[in-house]
């Protein structure tokens, strides 16, 4: 797999991939840790951007330029996911008041579940 070209471009792509990887890791951290659900959606959106970065670099490295179509499609679909989740958060906010969206205390929900025998 060692297709990286020689010279300056070679070095720069390696560095770029390394930093993209770190960014990817940080985004995954935020996605998993994110206190509120909105954080996680932001992380997902960031994930798409980093994906496009990867694709771009790989297009340059392998000079296989058809990859950027994958990038464009990813940008589009990433936007769709963000819109879908944003609307989900918005809809949830309008339902009868229950606490924060994330998994803080759900006491009454757990009791209800246990009353029903908690089997299903």
């Amino acid at each position, binding site marked *: 797999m060692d297709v990286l070209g020689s010279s300056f471009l070679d070095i720069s792509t390696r560095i770029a991939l390394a930093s993209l990887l770190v960014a990817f890791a940080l985004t995954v951290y935020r996605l998993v840790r994110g206190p509120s659900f909105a954080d996680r959606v932001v992380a997902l959106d960031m994930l798409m951007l980093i994906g496009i970065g990867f694709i771009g670099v790989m297009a340059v490295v392998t000079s296989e330029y*058809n990859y950027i*179509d*994958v990038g*464009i*499609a990813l940008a*589009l*679909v990433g*936007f*769709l996911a963000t*819109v*879908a989740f*944003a*609307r989900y958060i*918005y*809809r949830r906010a309008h339902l009868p008041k229950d606490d924060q969206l994330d998994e803080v205390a759900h006491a009454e929900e757990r009791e209800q579940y246990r009353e029903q025998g908690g089997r299903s």
Partner: protein
Amino acid sequence: MNSLILKTATPFLVGLTVLFSIYVLLRGHNVPGGGFIGGLIGASAFATYTINEGVAATRRAMVFHPVSIAGVGLFIAGLSGVASLLFGDAFMTGQWWFPSFAPDLKYLSTVVLFDIGVYLVVVGAIVAIIIGLEEST
């Protein structure tokens, strides 16, 4: 979710995406792309449109019911297969037509027709599912 900004941007984005999906579909023969991927992009375009503009707008935009679009797609795919029977080949063998005016145009064929059929099926079926989910509030 009546964000004005979204409403203004959606038509432009959806239009561009549908164009892009058709582009990916038609060049699929020689370059990464093809009916299935084109269909997925088309489906996500209409999904965006449904989420932002609502189901009624999408139905108007798609003119026909999405499932019937999928049906037509399947019919076209079947037709392109059957066409090869007329030329005495087995079912689904590709028939190519090389126009005299452009001898090296290697594109007009039942195979591409089949690909378009696949595209319509994917778009129709997935949009039908998304509309179904959207509508059942």
